[in-house]
């Protein structure tokens, strides 16, 4: 029987960060709790935040369950996490600048060249170009799990356009509205300055040809996109325009947006659109969502694109294995946060191990996301295991495997009362002229008893995440 680290209780005693929540929890009888839960749900419905987190698909109108029991970190715990996250964000960006430049890390034999240069996410079109401030990934979403008081593991990095930050902001907003007393009793670090820091970060990477206060926009694929709510929410909070490809056009050396007062030059584009779609003259010629000619303006310093095209090569699941190596290579430091040990089925020895330990391992597709195409060995039926064995054998390069981690739990409101449920964490690190991290992030919780899959498409919910001021 695996034991799990409970973030609130250590045996019978309550861990310090949760101390003040004990009374709050006990002071809430079932009826009040149900009333509050209904109230929270009504608030979320009114806001209209119903999209699937992390582009997982599923029913776009389904509300993701919100659990009112906050997840809490002490200031000291967070300080270490923050250092680890920023370290990782720096290394990932250094890697991106390098592999689109001289590729020193490959030349030094620290990562196989084919893993980088044959990667689908490697964009040959930006080789030789260094984006402003040397930043490729401006918003780095790092998915973390905890297995002990001091043990954190990075599950994956998201260097392109990590979503879900609107949940971080809304969860806090709703908690503050419903439980103002809690925010008086606890000294909780604010997260509501995230949009302002994001705007500042984006403005700090204005292109070389920009000689004035930069105009920032968010480029969305449109309202059919599952994260459209988040795009418009962030545009609103940052006070910038939300545009679609058809609202932008290239003229001469610059990009302009159509406005009622005529064309207006755009300097920084925070795009929530995949590389393949952003410019039919450089990438997919059939894309209607992008801006023709955008890449020529970008590469000649007329506009900045965030995240920079090509950033995806750093967050590939196979490249992930080498992030600790990147930290040592570029920063000369030891990684503060652990990687999960990963077996690459493309390697003969690893494959052999994986196939003989399928019952213990989590198997993932290299390019999969959202908890689909995933085998959780200890929870799988014999049929599922055999199905995966066949799939892996047929295409080993497409799979990686990791040990089943004992994800920490936090108290969660469930039908029977309060019970421990497994959680993960996605903080959002902002990289521009400076590297900044708001104290918090999105905590996802597996609401089904015993489940280790926190994805919203698989019955996961979300929680407010607190960092206590020291």
């Amino acid at each position, binding site marked *: 029987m695996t034991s799990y680290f409970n973030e609130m209780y250590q045996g019978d005693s309550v861990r310090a960060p949760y101390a003040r929540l004990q009374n709050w929890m006990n002071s809430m009888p079932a009826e009040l709790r149900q009333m509050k839960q209904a109230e929270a749900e009504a608030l979320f419905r009114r806001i209209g935040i119903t999209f699937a987190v992390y582009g997982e698909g599923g029913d776009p109108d389904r509300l993701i369950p919100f659990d009112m029991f906050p997840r809490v970190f002490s200031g000291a715990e967070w300080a270490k996490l923050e250092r680890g996250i920023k370290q990782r964000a720096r290394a990932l960006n250094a890697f991106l600048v390098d592999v*689109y*430049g*001289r*590729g020193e890390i*490959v030349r030094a034999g620290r990562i196989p*060249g*084919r893993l980088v*240069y*044959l990667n*689908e996410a*490697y964009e*040959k*079109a*930006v*080789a*030789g*170009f260094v984006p402003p401030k040397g930043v490729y990934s401006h918003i780095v979403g790092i998915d973390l799990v905890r297995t002990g008081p001091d043990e954190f593991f990075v599950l994956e990095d998201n260097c392109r356009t990590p979503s879900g930050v609107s949940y971080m902001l809304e969860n806090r907003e709703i908690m503050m509205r419903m439980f103002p007393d809690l925010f008086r009793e606890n000294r909780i670090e604010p997260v509501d300055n995230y949009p302002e820091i994001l705007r500042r970060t984006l403005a700090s990477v204005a292109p070389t040809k920009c000689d004035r206060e930069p105009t920032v926009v968010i480029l969305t694929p449109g309202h059919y996109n599952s994260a459209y709510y988040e795009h418009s929410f962030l545009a609103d909070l940052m006070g910038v325009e939300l545009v679609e490809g058809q609202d932008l*056009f*290239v*003229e*001469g*050396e610059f990009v302009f947006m159509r406005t009622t007062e005529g064309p207006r030059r755009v300097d920084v584009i925070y795009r929530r659109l995949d590389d393949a779609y952003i410019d*039919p*003259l*450089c990438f997919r*010629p059939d894309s209607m969502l992008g801006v*023709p*000619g955008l*890449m*020529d*303006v*970008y*590469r*000649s*310093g*007329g506009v900045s694109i965030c995240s920079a095209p090509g950033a995806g090569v750093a967050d590939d699941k196979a490249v992930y294995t080498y992030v600790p190596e990147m930290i040592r290579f570029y920063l000369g430091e030891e990684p503060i946060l652990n990687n999960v040990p990963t077996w690459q089925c493309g390697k003969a020895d690893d494959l052999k191990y994986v196939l003989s330990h399928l019952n213990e391992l989590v198997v993932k597709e290299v390019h999969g996301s959202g908890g689909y195409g995933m085998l959780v060995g200890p929870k799988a039926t014999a049929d599922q295991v055999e199905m995966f064995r066949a799939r892996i054998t047929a295409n080993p390069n497409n799979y990686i495997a990791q040990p089943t981690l004992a994800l920490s739990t936090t108290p969660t409101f469930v039908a029977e009362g309060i019970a421990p449920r497994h959680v993960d964490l996605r903080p959002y690190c902002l990289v521009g002229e400076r590297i900044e991290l708001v104290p918090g992030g999105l905590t996802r919780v597996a609401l089904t008893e015993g489940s280790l899959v926190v994805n919203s498409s698989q019955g996961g919910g979300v929680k407010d995440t607190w960092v206590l001021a020291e």
Partner: protein
Amino acid sequence: MLLTVNHVTRYFYDQPVRGVVQSHRLMPSQCAGQKMRSWKVSVSDGQMGGGFRDGAGDWVQGWTVLGPVNEITVHVTGEIETFDQAGVLRGHKELTPPDCYLRSTHPTEADAALAALADGLTPAQDALAAAHLISERVSDAIVYTADTTNAHTTAAEALAQGTGVCQDQAHAVIAIARHIGLPARYVSGYLLVGIDGAAHDAAHAWAEVFIAGLGWVGFDPANRCCPDDRYIRLGSGLDSLHAAMIRGIARGQGEESLDVSVTVQATQTQSQTQQ
């Protein structure tokens, strides 16, 4: 050899379009085999956009035309001195690692028939000989025949029908080379035609294969040779789309039609000392 180029591309729209955006690879590569004397690209009613040298060493230049227009003309004129390098691309500055050109794309996907053309090749022992054989086999298997394929024909389709043009043959060479682990890419440029009596288009395309120790080497299956001083190299890419001389898009409903004319002429090269 001193070559002069006159390349005119006319786009006609049956209804006026609101604007046109293009991305060009129309500047000669900077390499030992080419010395540019003069070169000019113009776009009727066009505004020159951003330009930059990409990781593969190509000069990429954006252009925009503000409509309404019914017609635009892209005009390239230039004079360039060329030197035979026996097909080897020398003195060409590029950053993109050869491994990038192992990735296959839709038109360069190797099916079983293309893979079969690699039978018996031993790139590990002699990559250069293998590349020569690939080019020869493609020349035999895809017979140069105009108007039997189109811009979207894949290497596999061209091989299946046994005919095609330089684009199809280049795609096939690339597909087979990559299949046996040799990085390969598509090159677009111009060719002085007529000397050998062949009447292939003066706007031409061929393949380059990366040979360790030697670098990028050109192979032209259409003319069963390696590029020499009759060739002018402009740009490269994973396939014809990515190496295209002109990629463009018009805003508006108008149907586009195209008229291309390219002439490449040799000027008598005079010895400098006689002047």
